[in-house]
């Protein structure tokens, strides 16, 4: 292992590192052992607790009512959020202060408010009773939040297109709309794509917040399963695994898109976008 931070290790350093490795491995194994021992002691390996996850009916419920609904929710809200983002992103770039300021205010507001607070507000104002229900409350909340984030991505993406491009387009006599649609957007979208996909990961993770208002999705199905079988620990492990697997696929797609469309250029840096720790 070579790095500019330290020399290629000599025999004594190598021995020391080997000692560290052994100590770390032993500590890790001890930790895993302790968890397994704890699980064994509290009877977590009992077949009945794991049974739902090897029963075809429950697997279907988990996949269809859980994963599919979650993906659907994330997908619908990302599509809507893209529309919202384009609208407000362009609004923030507008030449007219009367358009720019309201757009800025809306975007900043929804970016600063916690998503759960927003979802709860939407659900108890428009969703309950004759309203549109928990599903659309979550979708609407996700749309407003991710839309605002994407508006920021959009603005940054358009501004990342070299200035000369826009200037040249104006010079050959294009109108504002033409410059945006024919010159800036096609190039900007390529730059934005990885950021957009990593925002999809965030949206997918955030669908789990529907748990609070009993919206359908993985966490809801999980709650029903552990409510019936009392296997909280096993359910949590299964849910986490499903989320992780889905997100890894999305992340892989993002790297693919990055390599295919953006090349070696640095990915777009926008504060508070993508995986900076959104719920």
């Amino acid at each position, binding site marked *: 292992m070579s790095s500019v931070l330290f020399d290629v290790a000599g025999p004594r350093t190598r021995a020391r590192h080997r000692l560290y490795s052994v100590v770390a491995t032993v500590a890790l194994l001890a930790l895993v052992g302790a968890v397994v021992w704890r699980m064994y002691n509290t009877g977590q390996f009992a077949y009945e607790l794991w049974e739902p996850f090897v029963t075809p009916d429950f697997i279907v419920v988990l996949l269809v009512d859980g994963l599919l609904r979650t993906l659907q929710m994330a997908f619908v809200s990302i599509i809507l959020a893209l529309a919202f983002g384009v609208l407000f992103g362009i609004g923030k770039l507008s030449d007219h202060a009367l358009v720019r300021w309201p757009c800025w205010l809306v975007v900043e507001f929804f970016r600063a408010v916690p998503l759960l607070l927003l979802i*709860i507000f939407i659900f108890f104002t428009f969703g309950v009773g004759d309203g549109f229900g928990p599903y659309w409350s979550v979708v609407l909340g996700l749309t407003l939040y991710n839309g605002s984030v994407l508006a920021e991505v959009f603005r940054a993406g358009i501004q990342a297109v070299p200035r000369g491009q826009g200037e040249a387009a104006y010079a050959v006599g294009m109108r504002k709309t033409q410059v945006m649609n024919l010159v800036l957007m096609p190039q900007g979208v390529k730059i934005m794509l990885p950021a957009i996909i990593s925002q999809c990961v965030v949206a997918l993770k955030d669908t789990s*917040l529907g748990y609070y208002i009993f919206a359908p999705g993985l966490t809801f199905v999980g709650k029903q399963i552990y409510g019936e079988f009392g296997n909280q620990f096993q359910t949590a492990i299964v849910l986490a695994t499903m989320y992780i697997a889905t997100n890894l696929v999305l992340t892989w797609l993002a790297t693919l898109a990055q390599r295919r469309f953006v090349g070696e250029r640095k990915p777009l840096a926008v504060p508070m976008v993508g995986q900076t720790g959104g719920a």
Partner: protein
Amino acid sequence: MDDVFTRFDLVLEAFWLTIQLLVFSGVASLVGGTVLAAMRVGPVAVLARLGALYVSVIRNTPLLIVFIFVFIAAPTLDLLVQTPFVVKGVIALSVYTSAFVCEAIRSGVNSVPLGQAEAARAMGLTFGQTMSQVILPQSFRAVVPPLASVLIALAKNTSVAAAFGLIEATARMRFFTNNNAGDLPLIFITFAIGYIILVEVMSAGAFGLERRWRAAR
């Protein structure tokens, strides 16, 4: 009607809990994230792998699932049974945020130009000296903006604790809306402004630090 304003003390109390969650889990995850980052850039392969695994697992798990592990799954293993809810909330938030802090710090270390480390090594500085005298002082600067984003996200993430019986700001809003269904928008705006103040204070702080530490180039 004007419940939010007559019982404004409840609003402040709720935001005080939010701030406590934010500060405690912020400090814990800064420590945790730094340790993880050190593991990831350090020379011991096992620790580097372990750090990478932790980060990629946690980053792809929703915070709500982490909360389910701490609040609902752990007691079935006889763990954290007597622990106060606030401590559990801090544990869940710190476990989650550490991974993001680690990534922010690591990207800061990586943003220091290679030539700096090479020059330090060429002068005969050891690993410890290179890190403490050359790399880290420079990476602190680069780390401020991403770290601020992570901590702002943490401030918003404290709201997830509302789903697990902690009466912080979001749960308190739910309480008010239950009693006064009529003026939901007013209640929502009140609490939203509270969060916005929190976020703006943090980003102003980050901006100030960034400006103070900016190097003359």
